[in-house]
């Protein structure tokens, strides 16, 4: 891991040098696109207007730190996005894959400790939830910038699920990137009638020992699965809404650990161990060791089918009581030397064009974050025409079964307690 980072660092350094050495002939030929910022919003700190941002962005390299566990997503970013921003804005996009968010949080934090306040190595991060909260609280983020992005006019900032990231307000420190919803994945050739409620799933697990497991929290996906069980065990998410409350936690959550411990002997490997990550869990499902997969992305299964990694008969379902949904974002560290280019990339990711490309199952299949009502008729039609993929549920079915996320401190507390209450014998 470390070695790879080092190599990437060197590559980046070489790229920057190369970029610096190149003659600046590009500047003359490129016509700056006629884009204007959202009206009535102050320009981001350090820039007079959007033209200044575009000018400054020319020739900069953006180190985009993101979860790198999906070849599909990586390919979309290094291919489509990188090509587009290079061609249109003269911005070089360098994707840096990480296994989990805290890796880049630690990196920026380390730079802050070392006093590198001007020349950080991270320019853009794919972020939400706990990592956003940590970075925001340690004042590691640049902003406010996101409401000034020209394409943010397509974002409905009044939608609480967009304006709040796991209960913490966005305040222009994050630019929306996409929406996601949790789904369960199964192979219809092996299970004809999948369980449709949490109760039925629990019964299925006990009736079919060894064929179910979930990634060990703090893995993002596994943690989300555990929250579904907890919502169920405490009698609904309503009981856990609001600020984190230790007394409430201690009173309510034991019910959740009871349920998880009851099913543990019936899990894969008798629950003695859990898959380390979502990726590992996908391998178990693909190899037929377990019969259920899960994803915080409704279209992931379809993409994997299209790729040939999952069987054609793969399908998804959401629980009748609903599944958790959230918005994910990109943010800019306070010490990025390439903030202008990072904003240009964030703005491009928000464009109807990029959101449409991202929503295609063969590209990524991520849910668009733009409000259809704010789009032109043409764009609306294009979004409606997105092929859904064999395993993806309809937008209506997903929207009808949506549960909110808890505030981030709840997540952290649940993840930590899971270690001692469920994992350790």
């Amino acid at each position, binding site marked *: *891991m470390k070695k790879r980072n080092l190599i990437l660092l060197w590559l980046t350094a070489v790229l920057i040098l190369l970029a610096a050495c190149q003659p600046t002939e590009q500047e003359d030929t490129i016509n700056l696109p006629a884009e204007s910022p959202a009206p009535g919003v102050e320009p981001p700190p350090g820039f007079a207007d959007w033209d200044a941002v575009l000018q400054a962005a020319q020739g900069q390299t953006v180190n985009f730190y993101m979860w790198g566990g999906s070849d599909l997503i990586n390919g979309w970013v290094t291919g489509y996005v990188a090509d587009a921003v290079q061609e249109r804005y003269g911005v070089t996009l360098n994707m840096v894959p990480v296994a*989990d*968010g*805290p*890796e880049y*949080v*630690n990196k920026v*934090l380390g730079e*802050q*400790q070392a006093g590198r306040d001007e020349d950080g190595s991270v320019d853009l991060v794919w972020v939400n939830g*706990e*990592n956003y909260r*940590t970075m925001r609280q*340690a004042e590691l983020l640049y902003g406010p910038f996101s409401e000034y992005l020209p394409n943010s006019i397509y974002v409905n900032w009044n939608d609480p699920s967009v304006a709040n990231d796991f209960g913490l307000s966005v305040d222009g420190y994050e630019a929306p990137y996409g929406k996601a919803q949790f789904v369960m994945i199964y192979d219809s050739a092996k299970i004809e009638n999948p369980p449709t409620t949490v109760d039925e799933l629990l019964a299925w697990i006990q009736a079919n020992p*060894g064929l179910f497991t979930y990634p*060990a929290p*703090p893995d993002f996906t596994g943690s989300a699965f555990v929250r579904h069980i907890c919502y169920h065990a405490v009698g609904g998410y309503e009981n856990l809404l609001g600020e984190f409350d230790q007394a409430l936690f201690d009173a309510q959550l034991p019910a959740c650990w009871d349920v998880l411990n009851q099913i543990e002997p019936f899990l*894969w*490997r008798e629950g*003695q*161990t*859990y898959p*380390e990550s979502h990726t590992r869990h996908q391998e*178990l499902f693909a*190899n*037929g*060791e377990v019969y259920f997969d899960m994803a915080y992305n409704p279209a992931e299964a379809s993409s994997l089918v299209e790729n040939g990694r999952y069987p054609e008969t793969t399908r998804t379902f959401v629980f009748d009581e609903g599944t958790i949904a959230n918005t994910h974002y990109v943010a800019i560290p306070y010490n990025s030397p390439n903030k202008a280019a990072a904003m240009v990339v964030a703005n491009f990711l928000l464009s109807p064009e990029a959101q449409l490309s991202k929503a295609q199952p063969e590209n990524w299949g991520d849910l668009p974050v733009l409000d259809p009502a704010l789009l032109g008729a043409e764009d609306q039609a294009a979004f409606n025409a997105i092929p859904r993929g064999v395993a993806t549920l309809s937008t209506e079915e997903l929207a009808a079964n949506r549960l909110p996320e808890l505030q981030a401190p709840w997540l*952290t507390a649940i993840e*930590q307690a899971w*270690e001692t209450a469920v*994992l*350790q014998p």
Partner: protein
Amino acid sequence: MPTRLRPYLLLAPTLAVILLLFGGGVLLALMQSVGYLPFLGRTEITLDAYRAILQQAAFSQSFFLTLWVALASTAVSTLLALVCALALRRPFRGHRLITFIFQLNIPIPHLVGAVGILFLFSQSGFLARLANLAGLISQPADFPAIVFDPWAIGIILEYVWKTTCFTGLILLATLQGVGNDLETAAQNLGANRWQRFRYVTLPLLTPSMVSASVLVFAFTFGAFEVPLVLGQRFPSMLPVLAYRSYVDIDLNARPEAMAMNVIITLLIGVLIFLSTCASRTKRCAVNGER
């Protein structure tokens, strides 16, 4: 004058790197482990982190697992290396080819080895599929749990696979260095095969065997990537446990991560010191006199 300075000058670049990167890293870890975290506004020195991890059952379980893996890997690989070195010592038909094969995995990274073990030995891996084809097992769970297992067999397998040739090559070089005059002499004096091995060859090999196994032990005790890929989730080996605390979203877990790293470093350091002493002179461990 220049000749007296020469070794220092030649060593300076390497020493500077070691002292700065390793020493600096250890110093930072030490500071953070005692709770000195100015970026969190904490400058008070405290041993809370050490106290906390030493009280955790998870830490002691991880410690014993790590000890088991390091000891088992070192013992098995050293024994295999000894046998291989003795076998490869004298020429035979195909000797060069087999020596080449024996050294083949030296440049292969541990991570690749770990993934290879995963592909071969997991319950839906290559061997499980062969067993299924042969009608030995009917579903993945029937295949014995060799990776992610409580005894860390998968991790030990990887370490044995990788370190046997390392130790073996060191032993082989030693054997070729000493030649076989002493053994021939012993034979002439009437020593049988076992006696020649026990009283001549083995003592000659012991110093390099000790240093090679100390290196192997120190590496397997402190390495992180193989247990991360092949280990079960709980208990996990110490380096993995430390890594998890390090990437914990709660920054307050940082001192504990660093305390674990300091403990790992300390244990390995003490071990290397003792073994260096032991191989130099048998008295040094007692009172340090030369």
